[in-house]
């Protein structure tokens, strides 16, 4: 990604930080490429984290649907984190921390949009106009 060598433009402390992170490939391209081991780790973790939810749902392993939903969502969350770290190479240092800042800001907006929509619209349904005369007569 970057053609600037870390040891050229950083002072002593930063240089040591960089080398601590990029031990796998020392050709000075910054942290955007990852390593073979990193990609393979991410891939294997993703395969496991995908296979288990599919297996749980397709074979109906657990008796409770509620529990299955919670577990499937948890696996998805972990897999997103695995992709972020091993494939997108997210860390607190990339682009001087601005990547992480933008991500956190986006996640906050996503949570507000998503949870807010579901919450508000769920209650809207409760207050809908009655659909039939029968319903109108038996309002709660």
């Amino acid at each position: 990604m970057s053609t600037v060598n870390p040891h050229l433009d950083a002072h002593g402390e930063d240089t040591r930080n960089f080398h601590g992170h990029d031990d796998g490939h020392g050709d000075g391209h910054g942290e955007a490429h990852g390593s073979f081991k990193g990609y393979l780790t991410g891939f294997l973790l993703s395969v496991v984290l995908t296979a288990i939810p599919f297996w749980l749902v397709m074979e109906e392993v657990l008796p409770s649907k509620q529990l299955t939903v919670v577990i499937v969502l948890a696996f998805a969350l972990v897999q997103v984190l695995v992709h972020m770290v091993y494939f997108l190479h997210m860390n607190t240092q990339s682009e001087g921390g601005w990547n992480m800042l933008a991500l956190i800001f986006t996640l906050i907006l996503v949570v507000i949009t998503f949870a807010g929509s579901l919450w508000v619209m769920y209650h809207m349904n409760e207050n809908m106009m009655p659909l039939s005369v029968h319903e109108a007569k038996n309002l709660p």
Partner: protein
Amino acid sequence: MSTHAMSANAATSGAHADEFIVREDHHPENGTMLGFWLYLMSDCLIFAVLFAIYGVVGSNYAAGPSPADLFDLDIVAVNTAMLLLSSITYGFAMLEMARKRTQMTLIWLAITGVFGLCFIGIELYEFHHLIHIGAGPQRSAFLSAFFTLVGTHGLHVSFGLIWLVTLMTQVRKHGLTTENRRRLSCLSLFWHFLDVIWIGVFTFVYLMGVLR
């Protein structure tokens, strides 16, 4: 900006006064990657809204078919595998790019493209099948939201494929120049980002739809 700081660094190397300039300039190594990341974040918001719409109207079947009637999880599992495989092969292409091996980079990019094409092909087959049995986007609010969300993701993958072919032509013509390496890095982010979105799709739409 970077060159400015480097020349300043070279001019006064050893001096202590300019240390803070160097430290500050260390952040924007290359504005393109940060800018592209910001684009991806705004794309993320588009998908968040589409997910929210699906979450709100996803159970309004209008007396039509429900997810459990329609979705074939075997196909979805194969599709997920295709996208995941294309993710790792793109990763291998990036590793070859770092080693400056043009031919191997092109080969891995081509393999990535094949997996991407398989994904799009399977998804188009699924859409065609759904529309054919009368479960098209106009059937119910659930299906409208489904086609919008999954279709938008498929459209992104399609444009990613066009981008991939464009870059393969560029790399074959001009080699792994700085510009091409930067473009490949951007596409790498884009491609892996689409895989992240797909995790949400297969979990929230397909798996939880069948569970409902």
